[in-house]
């Protein structure tokens, strides 16, 4: 009998923070903040948004960087500040938290679906698995490069439809 797939503990805790939050409207508001490089993903779906807390007029947002040097983190931080200030919140602190380290396991099923539709193969469950072609769903694919246009992606090509495609690396 195969093991029952379980959601990762860190993933459950993150979802619980949102579900039990005293300020659900702020989480909803931050769903408008997208990854600047992959505009179909919100920072929640990407797994970057960790926590939102309100203390009177003061908002604290906790985000986790995807890759140590990802230049998009700075843009996401500014976008969070802008989204909240546009909604009238003037005291906003965005804090970066390194631990627990971000993982593609935190990505929501909707995010994986959105990535595939956008033309980026979603992350596999381990580093040795091969992705499927997001265009024709073939499993006959070759890796062209371990790295692609951004730190989080690798470059593949499909042997059936011959299209090259980005793969969101499993981390």
């Amino acid at each position: 009998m195969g093991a029952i797939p379980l959601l990762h503990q860190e993933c459950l805790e993150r979802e619980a923070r949102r579900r039990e939050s005293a300020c659900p409207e702020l989480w909803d508001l931050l769903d408008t903040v997208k990854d600047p490089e992959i505009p179909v993903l919100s920072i929640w779906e990407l797994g970057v948004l960790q926590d939102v807390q309100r203390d009177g007029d003061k908002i604290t947002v906790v985000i986790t960087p995807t890759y140590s040097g990802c230049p998009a983190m700075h843009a996401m931080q500014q976008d969070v500040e802008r989204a909240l200030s546009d909604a009238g919140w003037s005291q906003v602190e965005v804090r970066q938290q390194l631990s627990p380290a971000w993982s593609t396991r935190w990505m929501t099923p909707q995010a994986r679906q959105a990535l595939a539709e956008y033309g980026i193969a979603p992350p596999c469950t381990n580093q040795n698995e091969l992705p499927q072609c997001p265009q024709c769903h073939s499993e006959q694919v070759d890796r062209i490069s371990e790295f692609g246009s951004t730190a989080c992606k690798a470059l593949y090509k499909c042997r059936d439809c011959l299209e090259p495609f980005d793969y969101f690396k499993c981390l």
Partner: protein
Amino acid sequence: MTTDQTALLQYALGEADDALILGQRLCEWCYHAPYLEEDLALANVSLDFLGRAQNFYQYAAQLDPQQRTADQLAMLRDSREFRNLLIVELPIGDFAFTMARQFLLDCFYVEFMTALQGSADPNMAGIAAKAIKESQYHLRRSHEWLLRLGDGTEESHRRMQIALDQIWGYTMEMFENSPAENELLAEGIAVDRSALKPAWDTRVNTALVEATLSRPEDGWSVRGGRDGIHTEHHGHLLSELQFLQRAYPGLEW
């Protein structure tokens, strides 16, 4: 400021300097790599190291009694104040040299960051938890290149062997604890570098056999980076790295 905090600052700075200088060396390949995908890959690996450097510098900045910012620590210290290992500052050489160095360092970092995740200092442990995943990925790639060049053509084999021979004496320094590290060892904050050597040896030896390369002799070694005594290449590297902040202090994007 307690002695401990001074030692911790030195520890964080050493790690930050290693990552910054290596990241700077790697990005020298930008526009010069053998082909486009390799160009992207080296730039991305470089970016991982610059990000790692930023994390360590930010922590160092919190500990600094002079209250320098992360940017000031990276961009306004002179060569003698840098504590990076000599191996990371050596010029990029040919592609074989860059990949040989990367492979030897990736093997080291996989062991080192695994151990640092268990550090009693939560900030160091947090940075390591992030870095370990990246280093595992880097190792997969540099290992492939070691095999491909070592077990490739006569010319690629020759160059990879020369690269290993030239770099070998710089690997010893990776396994020597600085006085700051020795001080932090007792509290479980620092990683005991000397204890990582057997696992590193096993990884490296196995890969060298696979790649039909010979392990160089241990007869010579060079050290001094942790004391701020660098090679003649270090100042040139800093002059390029730091130029903008020196010419336009405080400049931001």
